[in-house]
């Protein structure tokens, strides 16, 4: 086998290895934290798909670059160079194939957008989330419980699981962003533009929460914790909070 063929084979093998790695690497293994919500699960699946596509395309393109850099080096090339200015069928091919690939991915995205940024009816719990410089006020509308950074320091957002929770988010001072990385979702709190979204929890656990939109001096410290508990425990907790008084 000539060197050129050997190199080519090596790159193909390398690319396949990368591909295998990509296929074997699920969203969880590559860093997205485990998700206790259904929406988060959907995000994980879409992420896996995009990641595989990215790895495949990346491996192909890097492989091509590596191939041409090695094969067409001046030191090992003899004879005239190609003077081809264009190759219309090839150009059409590498216009249409990426278009189809990107189109397919976008279709998947559009189908899943409403599933992930959901606004489902009949939530079990409604939490009003207010962000302010530099803390959170979670108001459980039906339970009449208020958890505030001012009062408790590092506030804990207790949520039932499995359950459907609607968050009504707003801010009155500057832009903040309500983000629980494990939920794989965030929503900005923009003064003048209140929004809401629903989340369907399905697992128990404790998760970090952060502010994800720069809001000034103590943006870094505007954190909270989200804790999902069984519905029974949640009711007990809510009753407990209520009895402690405002």
């Amino acid at each position: 086998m000539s060197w050129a063929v050997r190199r080519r084979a090596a790159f193909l093998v390398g690319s396949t290895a990368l591909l295998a790695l990509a296929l074997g690497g699920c969203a969880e293994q590559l860093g997205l934290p485990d998700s206790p919500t259904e929406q988060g699960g959907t995000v994980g699946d879409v992420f896996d798909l995009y990641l595989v596509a990215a790895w495949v395309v990346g491996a192909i393109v890097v492989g091509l670059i590596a191939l041409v850099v090695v094969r067409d080096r001046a030191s090992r090339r003899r004879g005239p160079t190609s003077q081809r200015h264009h190759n219309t069928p090839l150009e059409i091919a590498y216009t249409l194939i990426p278009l189809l690939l990107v189109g397919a991915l976008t279709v998947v995205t559009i189908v899943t957008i409403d599933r992930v940024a959901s606004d489902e009816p009949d939530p079990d719990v409604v939490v009003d989330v207010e962000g302010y410089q530099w803390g959170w006020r979670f108001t459980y509308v039906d339970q009449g419980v208020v958890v505030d950074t001012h009062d408790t320091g590092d506030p804990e957002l207790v949520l039932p699981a499995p359950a459907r929770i609607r968050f009504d988010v707003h801010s009155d001072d500057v832009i903040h962003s309500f983000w629980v990385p494990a939920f794989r979702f965030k929503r900005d709190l923009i003064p003048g533009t209140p929004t809401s979204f629903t989340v369907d929890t399905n697992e128990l656990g404790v998760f970090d929460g952060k502010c994800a939109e720069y809001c000034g001096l103590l943006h870094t410290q505007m954190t909270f914790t989200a804790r999902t508990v069984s519905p029974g425990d949640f009711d007990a907790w809510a009753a407990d909070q209520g009895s402690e008084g405002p």
Partner: protein
Amino acid sequence: MTTAPERPIAELPPERPEARGTNPGIVGWLTTTDHKRIGILYGVTSLTMAFIGFLLSMVIRAELARPDTQIVDYDTYNQVFTMHGTVMVYLFAVPFAFAVGNYLVPLMVGAPDMAFPRLNMVSYWLYLSGGLVVLSGFLANTGAADFGWFAYPPYAGQTGSPGIGGDLWLVGLLLTGASGILTALNIATTVVMLRAPGMTMFRMPILVWDLLLTCFMVLIAFPVLTSAQLMLLADRRFGAQFFVPSGGGLPILWQHLFWFFGHPEVYIVALPYFGIVTEIIPVFSRRPVFGYKGLVLATIAIAGLSTAVWAHHMFVTGDVYLPYFAVTTALIAVPTGIKFFDWIGSMWGGKLVFPPPMLFAVGFLVTFLLGGLTGVILSSPTLDFSLSDTYFVVAHLHYVMGGTVVFAVFAAIYFWWPKVTGRMLDQRLGRWHFWLLVIGFNTTFLVMHRSGLEGMPRRVGDYQASAPYAAENLISSIGAGLIALSMIPFVWALLRSWRRPDRVGDDPWGAYTLEWITTSPPPEHNFDWMPPIRSERPAFDWRYREEEGVGALGPEDPWRRRARHDASWRPFHAWVESDERAGDSGPPKAPPDEDGSDP
């Protein structure tokens, strides 16, 4: 044609413009209207700004290297990251592109200068003064602007950040924005009106096309930024309520206006550098650029689409129509992909050599690829909800902007340094520079993808020791140190070029475009003479004008007449070391053919 004189009499030079005489010394530089000098001024100023932005990034990485360090307090840190982004995007990336454009566009299209030379100088002064005004915020009591480079109100408004630093930021950027608009007008007019005879639109170098389309984007996007900035300034200073909810305004309006500018801005930052790379790759592959028309159409598509995608920066607001922007953003990947395959095609079947410009060009390809792929991931709102405002975006933006700007800036410097100064930069130092930069850059930014996935938000000055991304931050900071190290061979090469110059003639690389016809450095009016322009490679055509079947000086389509070419790569330094290199010895002689046979 063997008895043809060195400078063909039949080809009269264009009638000389009014004899120019620049004033000597500093006054000469202060009153210049010569696009080449203005290009150098832009280049030096923007590289100084890059150095300032780089120092700011060192502060960021020092602060983030370990949890619970407090090298600077939170307030200073917020100013540092704001100004890092501001300086790098507004005061380095775009102006350096204009440096390249100012210097090269008239040379590449065969014009004696830009269309409006004095306006050109006004642009430069406005850039300089605007940049100084922005930076002067650091001298204020309340410090420089600290609201992030996109300046979202209400935090950027009167109640959020009342200090004068923010106002200086706005005023400074109004000035640089005006500068950019004027330069864009100038470049566009030059390209449309001042091309040399025979230099049709589809024979212009791709760099000129990319700059022209960049100018179109500037003219569409910058006025929107200017308007928004005036509105914000009015909010801050004159009691306006554009972005104040209690007065009936909407903060989200700023986001729409800013990002309508902001997204084309990042393509304004990218396109000229794509053009630079497109000029370099074919030269060092000894073959023509592949897919010229495809590249032009793809760039037009990118320029157009870039203004229709702005709200992908606002997916997490819950207040934009997601499918429209998901589709347009994903679509941009297609023309970018076309460009990629055309670049690879421009190397395919060639004879590649790797002096520093080519190293940096290939480095750009790989780096920008990674940035483009993560861009496709971010184009999906489904995924963007978890990734927006995290270090995943920081990684993405540095791969696309850093990969494009940083690598292409150095490629441009190494490639055109001989033309601008008549000297060659040391090749070995260039190689050290390249490899240290590649290692440093990837060490810094590759792990940031992981940090973002693990939940690190942007613009934080600290994190818990128990955070999963603590290790990644340390690695990033080490990488930043390596990037700093990579600058040493570069500065050394610059100093060496000044102290012990390695002089070269008009065309040490054997390149293709019109600027290589003239002397290094070019005379005041750019061209003493010009060859006929019959293809996108006029210097190449002229060099091989006596070769059978190569380079056409007649009315026929030269592409059809050119069967094969340039069988041997003659190492450029062989020509440099010859007796001819000192001074202007006219057009280089064609190299002897090694292979007499046809393919």
